């Protein structure tokens, strides 16, 4: 064996964190955990497969000349955006849903929680890591779409793309937080992923019509459906696909910021629920 001795610091490094402000130390832990999640996504094949598939389908569709239609690029954008939405939901849900179950199954949670880390920091770190990773993936998807559409149309509505991408990213924040809370309730990542995916798609397709449905109902069903309508996170609010497809102008900044705030509140709510559940969970 080597005769190496561990270095000791002249300034008592073991007590360094004791001297550091609790808040600063907490965020260091959160970012360290988030960094590991981002590395994981970068080293897995899921994202690359989805990106290559989206790019291939879009490029193949783009190379076909259907009835010499001049506005074909609109359809192309619509298909590409649809694929981006599906891919981003799959990446966000599957990445987040497996975080805590994988930590428990591989027992990496034990050495992690044996360090001066709180459970809330682990959860927030996991959320931030997944959300940032989704942001990176989304950036690549939108860049591809922008370049592909710009090359065909010779217009570059950068602001519209940026607004749509950020709205989409914040919507994924709600999805990640929802999936993280689900991963504490449901032990198997597959069941959590399926349930979260069905709920998200359900909200995207049906939530905007729920108030109309409620109007046609008698009491107490009307109140219940209205209650659900107001309690649900309206993910469809973040869908700015038409804006990009038809090259409409940018969204007014006030409305855009309001939507981001709405997403932040819902993500915080789901994270709060996740933290409360995780704090009470015995880990053994």
């Amino acid at each position, binding site marked *: *064996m*080597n005769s*190496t*001795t*561990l*270095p*000791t*610091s002249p300034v008592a*490094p*073991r*007590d*360094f*964190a*004791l001297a*550091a402000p609790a808040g600063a*130390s907490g965020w*260091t*832990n959160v970012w*360290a955990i988030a*960094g*590991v999640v981002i*590395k*994981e996504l970068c*080293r*897995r094949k899921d994202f690359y497969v989805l990106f290559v598939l989206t790019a291939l389908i879009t490029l193949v569709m783009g190379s076909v000349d259907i009835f010499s239609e001049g506005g074909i690029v609109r359809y192309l954008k619509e298909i590409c955006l649809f694929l981006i939405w599906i891919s981003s939901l799959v990446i966000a849900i599957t990445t987040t849903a497996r975080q805590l179950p994988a930590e428990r199954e*591989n*027992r*990496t949670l*034990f*050495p*992690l*929680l*044996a*360090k*001066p*880390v*709180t459970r809330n920091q682990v959860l927030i770190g996991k959320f931030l890591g997944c959300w940032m990773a989704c942001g990176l993936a989304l950036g690549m998807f939108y860049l591809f779409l922008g370049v592909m559409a710009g090359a065909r149309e010779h217009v570059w509505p950068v602001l519209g793309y940026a607004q749509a991408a950020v709205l989409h990213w914040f919507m994924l924040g709600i999805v990640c937080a929802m999936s993280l809370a689900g991963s504490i309730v449901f032990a198997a990542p597959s069941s959590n992923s399926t349930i979260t995916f069905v709920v998200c798609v359900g909200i995207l397709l049906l939530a905007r019509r729920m108030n109309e449905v409620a109007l046609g109902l008698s009491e107490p069903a009307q109140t219940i459906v209205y209650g659900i309508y107001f309690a649900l996170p309206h993910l469809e609010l973040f869908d700015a696909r038409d804006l990009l497809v038809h090259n409409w102008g940018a969204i007014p900044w006030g409305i855009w910021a309001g939507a981001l705030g709405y997403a932040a509140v819902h993500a915080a709510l789901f994270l709060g629920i996740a933290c409360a559940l995780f704090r009470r969970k*015995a*880990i*053994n």
Partner: protein
Amino acid sequence: MASGGADPGDVSVSMSDVILKLEHLRVEYRSRELGQETKQALNGLTLAVHRGEVFGFLGPNGAGKTTTMNVLLGFVPATAGDAWIFDVNVRQPIARQRIGYLPEMTYYYKFLTAEETLRFYAKIFRIPKGEVDSRIEAVLKLVELHHARNRPIKTYSKGMQQRVGLAQALINNPDLLILDEPTSGLDPLGRMKVREIIQRLRNEGKTVFFSSHELGEVETVCDRVAILHQGELKAEGRVNELVRHYKLDNLEQVFLKIIGYNELNDPSNLAGRAA
């Protein structure tokens, strides 16, 4: 409870500041199934480990060793009683700032390399950036993994993974090491290496609290031992004093006597029960 009380004149005991303290610790696990009784994993465990000691924590499977460690590390809340590390209640995360922990048969983030893993844990301990490289270098050399530092952990053998575990437990230069069956699943060479590391840490004045089923190894390495059975502390003291107290030849025989193995297998008892 039998106690092989320590000699007051002994040097190691004269440095008697308590590093780890358990007082009347009780842990109950509630069953989720209806009609199932709660399982008492620990029952009034009181224990103290002093600075610079290598303390062996023994007991058969299900005795409550891992539960005790889980309480010390804040994974499981105690039903009653309390535990302190460096005079800080284990419910506070900061109690874990000066400890290193090696779980039994653990796995690390397989997509990270050993160096990235250690860098991650170093960040959590807020080790100053200027020191991180030298620490990583030192612990990787100590566990003899410096040649494989840039390979993903998924390519490591079981023994190498266990050594990554030791390296992460040592990255913060801890004053107290909690090792849960550190040699479990290792080949004889791996065991010898882990034993050497424990002995070296003792020479550096570290406190080591470890559980093991390898009684020969415990006899060689430990200053004091505690034997747990069915959640209760049955014996505590120096190995030679316990052996003398029970008038037996070695720790293994003491262990077997305490957990009642000899009585169960005594031919006269068997004959009596058959009659």
